[in-house]
């Protein structure tokens, strides 16, 4: 199979003994949108840094197309566009000047770069602001300029590191539309990292779930959810009951994958509607008080829980307290 991006057993640790990547592997087929999904600190950004030649791996290899990111770094840089986490526009320059410099670096000069800059400014709704200093741009405008800059040399592979983090919900929706448009056009390969489950679900054709520097699951979002077989049952309990709950449900064949996290009970069942009365009955006879019950089709959150043993929110909280 032809591959646009490939990471093979990447290992990277940082001075203070932090292991960012611990044997991370994945491959992206050309023309696809691929998401690395994981909580903050899972190693997604480190993977992007290595793939975009910014950092060198301690071990393992990575390729963009057939080019090794370490041995052929300069050639890789010519074929990729990168939108980093957080805006990286020069806020002392205008939008047009930012684009012009980026193009010049890629060897586009004279009229060609002026035309290309104008085209991108129009496409990203920046034509009116083109000759204003970027310091005065809104967050959404700076982000659009970031993307325009990454596209100036028409790269075959585009990296988007947390493209919507820190943006307002409306701006985020615009950005999603923009990213989908990019992917459907001219067969660009897009690798995006995100810690928003719904972002990965919406945009990516394939997802790799990253946890503690490794890919723990990979597949199309639908495929990953289907693997969970059946519905998710969420039960909110009145208080914490420790072992009582799992003992109460142990003998119910209709439910499986039981996970209790404080006052939240999650379980799976082939048929949620039938399983709920059984679960409630079992809980009631064990003296467990229930405050609410929901049955849902499996979400990526459930996928994450299955492969990592903790909920996405819990993993995020863990990362921030570290």
């Amino acid at each position, binding site marked *: 199979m032809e591959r646009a991006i490939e990471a093979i057993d990447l290992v990277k640790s940082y001075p203070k003994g932090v292991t960012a990547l611990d044997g991370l592997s994945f491959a992206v087929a050309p023309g696809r949108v691929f998401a690395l999904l994981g909580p903050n600190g899972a190693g997604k950004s480190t993977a992007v840094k290595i793939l975009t030649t910014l950092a060198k791996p301690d071990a393992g290899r990575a390729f963009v197309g057939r080019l090794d990111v370490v041995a052929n770094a300069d050639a890789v840089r010519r074929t990729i566009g*990168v939108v980093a986490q957080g805006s*990286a526009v020069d806020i*002392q320059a205008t939008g047009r000047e930012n684009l012009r410099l*980026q193009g010049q*670096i890629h060897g586009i000069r004279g009229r060609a770069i002026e035309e290309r800059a104008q085209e991108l400014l129009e496409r990203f709704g920046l034509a009116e602001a083109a000759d204003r200093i970027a310091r005065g741009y809104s967050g959404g405008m700076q982000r659009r300029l970031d993307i325009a800059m990454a596209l100036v040399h028409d790269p075959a592979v585009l990296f988007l590191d947390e493209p919507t983090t820190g943006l307002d919900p409306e701006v985020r929706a615009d950005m999603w539309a923009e990213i989908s448009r990019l992917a459907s056009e001219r067969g660009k390969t897009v690798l995006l990292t995100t810690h928003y489950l719904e972002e990965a679900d919406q945009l990516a054709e394939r997802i790799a779930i990253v946890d503690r520097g490794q890919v723990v699951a990979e597949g199309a979002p639908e495929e990953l959810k289907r693997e969970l077989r059946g519905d998710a049952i969420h039960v909110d309990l009145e208080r914490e009951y420790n072992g009582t709950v799992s003992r109460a449900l142990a003998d119910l064949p209709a439910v499986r994958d039981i996970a209790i996290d404080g006052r939240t009970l999650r379980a799976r069942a082939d048929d949620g509607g039938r399983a709920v009365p059984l679960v409630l009955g079992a809980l009631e006879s064990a003296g467990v008080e229930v405050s609410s019950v929901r049955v849902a089709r499996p979400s990526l959150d459930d996928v994450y829980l299955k492969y990592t043993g903790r909920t996405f929110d819990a993993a995020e909280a863990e990362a921030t307290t570290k």
Partner: protein
Amino acid sequence: MTLIRHTLYMTLRHLRELWRQPWFVAVTLVQPVIWLLLFGALFKKVIEIPGFHGSSYIAFLAPGVVVMTALFSSAWSGMALIEDINRGVTARFLVSPVRREALIAGRILKEAVVVVIQSLIIVALALIVGASFPGGVAGVAALFAVSALLGATFGALSNGFGLIMRQEEALIGAVQFIVLPLTFLSATFLAANLIPRWMQHIADFNPVNWAVVAGRSAVSANADWGLIAARAGLLVALLALSVAFATRAFHSYQRSV
């Protein structure tokens, strides 16, 4: 060719940035004007000290102010680099095929250009207030050249330290700690034969003094070109070392990304 072109792109970017901060430009020029007029008036009587050769303190002081201004403006060069790093601009350049050397060279070249422009203004001002430069155009050009060398050197050092410290406050501290002593431990304000002997010994190793001595000689009536060449040579050597230092600091920054 690519290296030259990329360096030029970066230099133009930095110059444009400076041009867009009119207050900063004004402040960097107010300072030398104050030095020139205030010190020129304050130390007017210095020429009466036995052993002082010359008839106008302003004419004596002007080359010193040119060199001092070069030092004061270029020593802050690393601040903009720290800002670029913090804003992710440097990382964006690093994932592009830009020549790495251009990222440092562009900043150093910008300092040299700024120094020449500032020097022109100071010399014009000195002429207006009555100084004369018997060394003529060639002498003034030599003064500009040694000042630009000094500016480039301290620009490189500032970028190198900026890359190591990566904290604006730390760099401000370092610059303030270094700049004034270097100025006063030189013949900027007083002729070398009038400053204490121990200071003269220090001044011999002070690059600011190399530039002052060479620049002042160049604009004087009887320029000592041997001396000028020797001091300029020392400045070139120091510039080479400073650029090597800044380049190494940049590599260590790249490894830490």
